[in-house]
């Protein structure tokens, strides 16, 4: 049976009827039409679907939409403000922290969480923080550079 849920998605409240089994990632992508977060696996390993729910980075393929009822959901589309890229987005761009771009929204969203909790991470802490996000293109080195750069910018 469908249930009504209310979610504030990137600052905009919305209400939808959803099946309980609808995954949050499918709610965001197929119901709300925000396709920035991606599905890269079904075993909660790759992190391409990472979004923030009430400020907490989660893998939205491992959460049902009903669990997000009443919560604030932030996706990659909600990161830039007034047309200005977020510092982390800018850092990924400047440091060539992406190639095919498929993992990138998840990488950026988890970076946000890493830096919120530890504004000046060491390289080891950055790599540990990226543990739940797979990238097949970059070998991670430019992603690590991007996180470092974003940290330096945010700290400054």
């Amino acid at each position, binding site marked *: 049976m469908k249930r009504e849920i209310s979610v504030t998605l990137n600052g905009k409240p919305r209400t939808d009827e959803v099946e309980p089994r609808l995954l949050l990632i499918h709610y965001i992508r197929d119901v709300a039409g925000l396709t920035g977060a991606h599905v890269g696996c079904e075993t909660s390993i790759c992190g391409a679907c990472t979004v923030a729910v009430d400020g907490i980075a989660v893998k939205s393929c491992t959460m049902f939409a009903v669990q997000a009822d009443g919560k604030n959901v932030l996706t990659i589309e909600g990161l830039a403000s007034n047309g200005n890229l977020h510092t982390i987005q800018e850092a990924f761009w400047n440091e060539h922290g992406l190639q095919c771009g498929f993992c990138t*929204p998840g990488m950026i969203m988890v970076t946000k969480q890493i830096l919120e909790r530890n504004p000046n991470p060491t390289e080891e802490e950055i790599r540990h923080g990226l543990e739940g996000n797979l990238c097949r293109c970059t070998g991670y080195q430019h992603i690590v550079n991007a996180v470092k750069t974003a940290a330096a910018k945010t700290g400054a």
Partner: protein
Amino acid sequence: MATTTITRTEPLVGKRIRRREDPRLITGTATYVEDIQIPGMHHACILRSPHAAARIRSITTQPALDMPGVVAVFTGADTQGIGPVPCGASLPGLRVPYHRILATDRVYFVGHAVAVVVATDKYIARDAIDLIEVDYEPLPAVADPEKAIAPGAPPVHPEWPDNVAFTFHQEGGDIDKAFAEADVVVKQRITSQRLIPTAMETRGVVAEWRPGEKSLTLRSSTQIPHLMRTLVAQMLSIPENRLRVITPEVGGGFGSKFNVYAEEALMGFIAMKIHKPVKWIESRRENFLCTIHGRGHVDYFELAAKRDGTMLGLKLKLIQDLGAYHQLLTPLIPTFSVLMMPGLYKFANIQADITGVFTNCVPTDAYRGAGRPEATHGIERMVDILAAELKMDPAEIRFKNFVQPDEFPYATPTGLSYDSGNYAAPLEKALAAVDYPHLLAEQAKAREAGKLMGIGISSYGEICAVGPSPAMPAGGWESATVKIEPTGKVTIMTGISPHGQGEETTFAQIAADELGVDIDDVLVIHGDTTVVQYGIGTFGSRGTAVGGSALYFALQDLKAKIKKFGAMLLDSDDILFANGQCICNKTGKSVTIAEVAGASYRAMKLPPDTEPGMVATRFWEPPNFTFPFGAHIVVTEVDKDTGDIAIKRYVAVDDIGKIINPLIVDGQIHGGVAQGLGQALWEQAVYDDNGQLITGELMDYALPRASRMPWIESSHTVTPSPVNPLGVKGVGEAGTIGCSPAVVNSVVNALQPFGIRHIDMPLTSEKIWKLVNAGGQA
């Protein structure tokens, strides 16, 4: 210093420019196949065989059809009129099984497509799959290529009981003489395990049929839109000009999307049947089961040499695990290994015998490097084995055997002509970077202290810019169209199909330099067969070397035309074209490129023998491959207690010819090394004896993660290629090819005190631990 601010007059080629692709990717506004929504779109879900080999006795679809929301269910009986999944390779005597898009009476590997459900919703389509009943009669299967060619093995295809799809022999020089004259012959069995390419975006197709126009549009995550159009049109028996293939954003390929799969034709078939758009998105599990794997070699090498280290000849018996079918280039891949056999070394005698073997597994095909990593791994391991046998330094034996800079173009015994090179240069640079004498002293000390420290070198070569057309089944040229619009803006349409490699940026750099325009005035378009002239696609490190060269020549055509119009407009026969302006050398008067372009379209007046407009198209046929090379040095330390390998240093010196954008090149090297390291240390597609894929999810197939990657110290030597006007060689596969032998050489070197001379990949901790602690076999 990631990026450089460019002032207008500086050339852009050679600069670390941030990518023009990125704004859409970092904001989540790019459109991948799964992001496409079309009104009325339906969803397909595919039922796949749980058996590696079985007869299909019956399929019951009615319960699925009865489910509300289900529109259709198709089985192999419905799709018999559709042509087979194409194999583009032809080899003498090649056995080609008929590869139907849905299985009919028999399944040949786990994941083989058996039926497809079409529903209004993807959740319903998935539910309905469980309602289809297939009565299978399981049959014996074989998953290991060596077992498959042993007597008594179950036949994968009953019509060919020996499981041999082809044999292939190649010889160069006089191999018997070489081995007769040798002081020493070293032999080793070396495997390159099956790998799963694992692009982060799985495959996906959206098919849309417009009955009124009798036209089909396929949006597919592919590296080869045009080849796909040609081949799928043939499969579906529809006119090619009524099939449009669009590649939206593609989330990585690494060769796995350099193919035409059953699903592309199947979705086209469905859309034409139900007159509704239909979408199919591969799950990760399907991606592991049904999208091509790479590698899958068992290689038996024999290397003959003189006691002074001079290499004389190399023999190879290559057993290629093909899987159950041939995908686009499956049987051709091991022939690339043969071409690559001599590496960078000067011996004149080779002999190779390939046996292509059917197994009850998903087909293998091109995966980053495609045959060349296997060969390079082999020769680079054999050189180290020889060095150990002769008690020579691995660097010294390489220097001794390199083809020398004055010997280019160099004819190899495998029939290639190496374009240009200074093979000692990157090795010298890498040795200097690690301070080799000091490192050896450090290792001696470490060994005295009981530590297992290893130093590994690879000096690799590769075959890139694939390739001259005769070497490819469907052409190896590439195309470019450049249009200068009436307002002076520049549109490039390239026949390649980049998906992360950054040619929207590098091609804009090239065009901006050639035309003297602002890079922001250049737009690069690709991946739509209705918009872009025919092209071949992106694979084999060919994008810039072949596609960029086509672009370069189209730009030269336009520059000539610009000068003609400039001369006319300035009424001068002494014209210079520079910085986006035509300047009269006598009067100093000038017109801008926009003024020239505008005049060419208004065409109030035309220069003699000149057509209106400012468009040029070039189809460029490369005269040769390019041959990048380099040296990687890896320092490792092995933990005796656990067998864990720590990479202490990774130094990569790559010569990829001229560099258009160093930032992008660094990224290509890093990513390539990561995939090489994945093969060396962690990744393996494991099938059990019944043909079940044990590593069927990312929970069991270990991709490199951020915390496990070393810092890669990347630098270059630059030897321009004479093959193309840009002087580039190609970079996409370099890191992968250079990496795995350097890592394995390093670990074998670390285990030298235990008398170890070879270890097969992946170098799992358990394997290493056994060697260290039991003195046993890995």
